[in-house]
Every structure is written in C-alpha cells, then in structure tokens.
C-alpha cells in the first residue's frame, strides 16, 4: 500500500509542477486585440451571442465578476464575455480569468494565458485583484459546468463560497454575470463524480467530475478532456447589479446565487427553443 501511495504522490507532484505560476505579465493586450475580430465573428454568427448590462460593471478599478458556468470543457460563455469585456472597456484594462489547473497547464491552450487566464487558486486571484485588475471567477467550476442539460438553468456553486472572502479581503465590489445557452452546446448526461472517485482523478488532478455527455464529434463523450464541437446554441450574457460584500459569508453567498438565479431565470424566459434560443 505504501508503494501505491508513493506512486499517487509522485503523479500529484508531476501534475502540480506543470501548472504554470501565475505571471500577470503574460497577458498581452496586442495579442487580444488581434484575436477580437475572429472571436467577434464566432460569437456573432455561430453563437448569435447577446451581451447586456456591461454598464453595471464599475468603469475602472478592481472588481470581482462572479458567473454561472456552462458548456463543459468548451464553455462559450467565457469567451463571449471576455470578448465583450475587452471590447467595451478596451484591451488596455487589465482583465484576468481563473481556470482549472488542467486548462492552464495544457500545452495546446498556452495562448489562453495571453488572454489573462491564470490557474484557479486563492493566491492568484488575490494577486490579480491587488494589481487593480478585473477578475472573472466561476465558483461552481467543474461541478457546475458539467451539470446535466436538463438542469441547464440552475445556478449551483456546489457550496463553494471562497469567492466572498476573496472580495472582502481585497475590498472590491462583486458583480454577478448571468448566462444561458452554454449547457445546450452538448447533451450533458451526468457529472460523473462517482467515476472521478473510481479513477482517483479527484485526488490526482483535482477533477471532481468525469462527465458523461453526448457531444460532437465523439457521440458518447466520457471525460470531455479532448473537448467537443459545440452546437450553435444562442448565448446570452448579462451583467447584473453589483452586490456589497459587507456581512456574513453565507448570507452574501446566498444573495449572489439568488441574484444569478433570478438573472438566469429572466434570460431563460426569453428562450423559446433549446439551442435556437
């Protein structure tokens, strides 16, 4: 058993050592500017995206943007919102996004760091906010992003509320970002938390889910590690009214989830059909 634990520890160390340290200087405004037309085409033509309420985000200074997360390992809401933020406030305004360790350490996704994507941990988040940047977080992470498609309009952070302390410690306002449509880009069947435990990737790779879905081009897609080809679902994102961080963590967390749920419900009510919108 000791040998098995050693192997487990070695694998954990190997994975952890490959997660790049957050270097905020890796964000490259010129690179982002060059990519905006391509992402605008994809967002406008393929996803028929609509982003609203950006005027509710403070025009300058650090701010914590808290969103509900959808779309599995190819989350269109993230790139649509990133496009909108950079377009509205300019690529000059520092803006970072937290992502799972596996995302930032995957060599083919190295370009994400030029967009300001850093590994999701408290230290990186604190560093980004202290630098005066806007920071986008999805507290629900891999728990929420792989929820079944029939729960597509349910906001559920899985009890994670560290983001409240993060905002309070940094003394920054918090703006909820509601989005719909992402969970219709594939048919997500099960989070596969039991599979994650069975394969022990929950300990090795911090993966709490090994999702099971039906997605292009794979058909039955287990794990979604290779991503998938998203269906052209209409994506709608709305920035909601800022929320004060004064008070008890649990109460603020409930307030954020309630605000997001109300926002998602309102956006969902506008949809007539799945995918088409």
């Amino acid at each position: 058993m000791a040998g098995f634990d050693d192997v487990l520890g070695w694998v954990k160390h190997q994975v952890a050592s490959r997660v790049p340290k957050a270097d905020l200087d890796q964000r490259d405004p010129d690179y982002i500017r060059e990519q905006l037309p391509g992402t605008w085409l994809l967002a406008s033509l393929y996803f028929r995206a609509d982003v609203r309420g950006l005027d509710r985000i403070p025009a300058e200074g650090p701010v914590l943007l808290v969103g509900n997360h959808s779309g599995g390992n190819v989350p269109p809401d993230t790139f649509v919102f990133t496009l909108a933020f950079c377009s509205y406030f300019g690529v000059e305004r520092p803006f970072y996004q937290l992502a799972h360790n596996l995302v930032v350490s995957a060599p083919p996704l190295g370009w994400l760091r030029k967009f300001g994507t850093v590994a999701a941990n408290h230290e990186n988040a604190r560093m980004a906010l202290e630098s005066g940047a806007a920071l986008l977080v999805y507290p629900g992470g891999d728990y929420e992003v792989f929820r079944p498609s029939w729960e597509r309009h349910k906001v559920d952070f899985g009890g994670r509320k560290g983001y409240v302390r993060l905002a309070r410690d940094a003394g920054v306002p918090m703006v909820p970002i509601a989005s719909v449509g992402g969970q219709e880009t594939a048919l997500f069947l099960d989070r596969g938390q039991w599979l994650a435990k069975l394969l022990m990737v929950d300990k090795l790779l911090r993966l709490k889910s090994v999702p099971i879905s039906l997605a292009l081009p794979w058909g039955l897609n287990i794990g979604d590690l290779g991503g998938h080809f998203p269906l052209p679902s209409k994506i709608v994102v709305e920035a909601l009214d800022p929320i004060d961080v004064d008070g008890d963590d649990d109460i603020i967390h409930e307030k954020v989830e309630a605000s997001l749920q109300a926002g998602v419900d309102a956006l969902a009510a506008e949809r007539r059909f799945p995918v088409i919108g």
Partner: protein
Amino acid sequence: MRLERRVVVDADRDAVWKRVSDPACYPEFMANIERWETITDGPVTVGSRFTVHWKVGSVPVGGTVEIVEFDHDRDLAFNGITGVTVRGRFRLRDADDGRTKVVFRLAYEAPGGLLGVVADWVAARQVGRIMETTLTNLRELVES
C-alpha cells in the same frame, strides 16, 4: 471598410449643426448606441474626446474617439483612439429650397489580418443600417 449614407433635412444648416455639434444630442439620434460618455471638459472643439460604443453583432464595439475637425455649419470629423480603428464625419451642405444635405461617413478597419477583413465585411451591412437609422433619427429630431 468605407461606408456613406445621406439624407436631406428640411431645415437650414444652422439648425442641423446645432444637433450634430452637441454631444448631449448624440444618444437621442445615434442608433444602436450602448455607451456615450464625455471625457473632456468644456465646449466641444477639436481635441474633445468621447467614449462611444455601438451594439454591432454580439457585443458593443467602439472606444475613445477624438474630434479632429470642427468646422462650424460644415464638417465634424472624429478619429478613434482606442478600440477598432475608425474615422467618422458628418458633412453638411446646402440643398434646394433652404434644406440641408447631411452626409454621414464611417471608415473602419478591424485588426487581425484576414479575419479582420472578413469581420469588416460581415459588420458592414449592420453598420450601414445603423448609419441610415441615425440619419433618419437626426432628420426627425431637427424637423420636429
């Protein structure tokens, strides 16, 4: 991409210029405008700066613009400083019977090489419609 739209307003140039030269009027007649903020203080003149975003496609597009030409009753031109490279102009000229011909020109160029060119072409149709609606709104505002 260079686009141009025209309209004839049943009013003299002075009346049209009063609207075109007043930034406070822009949210009233500019179509698809998402954000309009005055950056510089004082009366509008060459060097005045504004933040302007139009909803084009999925997101607000625009940035900071600076007035580079302010020729009373004739021309108002602006250049984009941040965001998409853009140059715009309102050109006022006399038409028959004391009316005024208003020409609205926009030249813009997205970065990003070939994808930028494609984006310019795709956006042109909607931008053209925004310009047409803007001029219609301006005409109604001045004639009302």
